[in-house]
């Protein structure tokens, strides 16, 4: 498709009416092009397959959108708009029937093997740990982590990717100028600094309407070849994402959790419906389509197992490290498990923390510090 200025504006105007089906809008753009605005609503209805009333509404809504001003603001904030049909528009989205007409991008976008990590907004410490672990391992295998910048699992996934100098894409449910939740501003800056990007199909100033989040989920799964669900309740956005992913032909992965936790409902439901159970990152890599192995990637997970514990440590400290393993454990659990007395335990934990081998988490719990 040829993208003249006029065409760009038309496409952006059509893109702004996100309440209408993308297919209908795409038809209008393809068949009528820039001559669209001269045509009456009846013709719109016929071409797009809409009722007269909604075609009228669509026309009214799209014509009143100031595309020139919007493009200027996009330029000023250093962002870009990618249109469906352009060269830079993500390859993975092109094949989708519901793909957005245009997508706003702040930061760098590049061809990549992407894995989506999604889950609940209110995770347990276990969920956070898993999100962060798989994101870290994904990054070290050369994958780009896609998620939604929401609270909870999304934040953990982005953060772990950024901390490990990996690329990560955040797909927003609001406009780029309306970052939600606001506390993730700093994280979003780090994402861009690390060569990732923020993207959104919604106009710059669009508010985070509840209805927008399921819509952006199709982009999260669409951009990736697989979706990893970490924690979620029975009725959750993660399940929606997983369903869309399956419809789009993406692989669905789920991390199991404790069976008595309501947050394990979504992953367990998915596993029972055929999603792949993930306990190690290799489980994910096995499913990666061959086309994705463009360069040699190697899993370099540095795990702290017995052989890996520094020799110089005292016996009791080695015992503690071995016992903690990959969990976060409370003071007393460690004391019981290692059979240490109070004073040895407290000074050992202190020294291990000072040496940067463990970190303390909320709830007076200790976990092994992950090293890259």
């Amino acid at each position, binding site marked *: 498709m040829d993208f003249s200025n006029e065409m760009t504006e038309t496409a952006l105007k059509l893109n702004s009416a996100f309440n209408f089906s993308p297919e209908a809008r795409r038809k209008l753009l393809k068949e009528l092009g820039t001559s669209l605005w001269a045509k009456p609503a009846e013709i719109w209805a016929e071409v797009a397959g809409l009722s007269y009333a909604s075609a009228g509404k669509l026309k009214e809504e799209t014509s009143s959108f100031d595309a020139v001003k919007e493009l200027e603001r996009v330029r000023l904030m250093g962002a870009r708009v990618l249109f469906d049909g352009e060269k830079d528009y993500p390859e993975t989205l092109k094949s989708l029937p519901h793909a957005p007409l245009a997508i706003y991008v702040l930061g760098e976008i590049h061809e990549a093997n992407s894995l989506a990590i999604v889950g609940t907004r209110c995770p347990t410490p276990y969920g956070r740990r898993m999100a962060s672990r798989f994101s870290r391992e994904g990054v070290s295998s050369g994958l780009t982590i896609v998620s939604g910048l929401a609270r909870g699992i999304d934040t953990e996934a982005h953060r772990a990717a950024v901390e490990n100098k990996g690329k990560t894409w955040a797909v927003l449910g609001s406009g780029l100028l309306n970052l939600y939740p606001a*506390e993730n501003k700093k994280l979003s800056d780090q994402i861009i600094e690390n060569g990732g990007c923020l993207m959104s199909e919604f106009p710059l100033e669009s508010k985070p309407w509840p209805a927008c989040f399921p819509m952006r989920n199709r982009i999260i799964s669409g951009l990736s070849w697989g979706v990893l669900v970490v924690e979620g309740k029975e009725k959750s956005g993660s399940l929606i994402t997983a369903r869309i992913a399956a419809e789009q032909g993406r692989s669905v992965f789920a991390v199991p959790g404790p069976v008595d936790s309501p947050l394990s409902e979504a992953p367990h439901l998915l596993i029972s419906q055929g999603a792949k159970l993930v306990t190690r990152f290799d489980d994910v890599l096995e499913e990666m389509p061959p086309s994705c192995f463009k360069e040699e990637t190697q899993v370099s997970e540095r795990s702290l197992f017995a052989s890996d514990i520094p020799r110089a440590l005292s016996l009791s400290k080695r015992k503690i490290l071995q016992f903690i393993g990959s969990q976060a454990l409370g003071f007393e659990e460690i004391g019981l498990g290692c059979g240490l007395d*109070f004073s040895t335990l407290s*000074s050992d934990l*202190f020294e291990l923390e000072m040496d940067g081998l463990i970190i303390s988490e909320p709830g007076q719990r200790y976990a092994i510090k992950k090293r890259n």
Partner: protein
Amino acid sequence: MLAHVSSMGLCGIESYPVLVELDLSNGLPGYTTVGLPDDAVRESRERVIAALRNCGFNLPQKKITVNLAPGQSRKEGSHFDLPIALALLTASGQITSESWEGKYCCIGELALDGTLRPVRGTLSMAMRARQDGFKAMIVPKANAAEARAVGIEVVTGETLREIVDFLISPQSSRRDFIFSDPFEDFFSASKPGKSTEDMAEIKGQTLAKRAAEISAAGAHNLIVMGPPGIGKSMLSRRLPGILPPMSRGEILEVTRIHSARSKEGSGLIFQRPFRAPHHSASLVSLVGGGPAAKPGEVSLAHGGVLFLDEVLEFNRATLEALRQPLSDFKITISRAKDCVEYPARFILVAALNPCPCGFRGHPTKPCICSPKAVLSYFSRVSGPLLDRIDLQVEMFPLDFSDWAVQTNMGSESSAEIRKRVARARFKQQERMGREDFAANAYLTPQEIKRHCVLSSSAMDALRQAAQKFDLSARGLDRILKVSRTIADLEDSNSIETRHIAEAMNYRALDKARNSL
């Protein structure tokens, strides 16, 4: 005909001498009280007249004028009944006053039948009476132990008649009025607290119990954080049970405050107070005040524990008012009528949830709070206030209760812990060279330098920790004071690395805030 009887007035918890003057003159029979009496003092007229008549004395048909000198200070309370009655009897010639005028100081409320009722503030008045050189103090029987505790001779009786009999012929009835030292029973028996709540009832939670022990040993303020229903209040309520016994001076000071407020005449207070105001408490009820400048909960908790459950639900202004007592150990209340200073040296125990929903960091339950909500939750209490709290510990649900049994920790009874605490407190008293209110929490920065001697490896550990956790100067002092107490519990003179290491455990709230 004129009579003078010495008595005492009460302002806050301080007493001042009051001279009751009574004049009988010819004229229309009447009764006037002057010298800024409040309602209770003015009403004494009716009690005095009825009591005299019912004890079989004559009431002179004259004009009666009572003056309470000094005239410019406001007189409160019902304890002027007895001195007024005695002055009336003297002025009307029914008893003679040469043998006791100016030597005895009297207080007491009269019932209509002449029985003596207990009054407020006896201890404070007896202290002043002793200081002013009175020979003896005449008090109602229920207040006798309190007055005796300051070492002044005490004369007491059930009724006005008994007091008058003694004043007429001291030799015949004197023996009834000698009391033994009320402290002796207490110190010889050295009874532990009568509290039925015992630390041994708390299963597991070794870290929290250890924090309570350190808090008791060094009088450190304590924050207990944890999800709802974990036993934060249970732990806090057992803290008085492991506190060391009070010294003589402490008993007197604590009794003085409680006696100035309550009228029960319950004698000396040997138990350390435990005050637990509800979080709806007003500022005045917490720090004291009101028209009469009454002591508040902080002063009533003097020498004991002030427990604030759900501390973040307290009004912010109310909490911030705790800053002065927490650093000066006293509170000054200025009102239009009075300016009063009350001692307020207590162990603050504050319980709170780790976030608004209560499940942050819970091993299985999800927390539904956004980081912003948690931040604003913690910001309800200011940094300067938190800086004054030495120990922060978090309680967590655990299936593991056997560690306690296995390592023989945490199953100890309160009495055993108390012994260890008392030994540690004794070391602190020796070090600080005083008996009353000597505890590591009260160390001044100069004293910290002198008394908290670190071994060289401990110094290294502290320096590293200060760098890693970005500790402020006050934060360092807190760690030093707590490690000093931990070393005292172990009977170690110098502070070793393991003491510093343990002290670093009790920073749960700092850690929780930093992790946001």
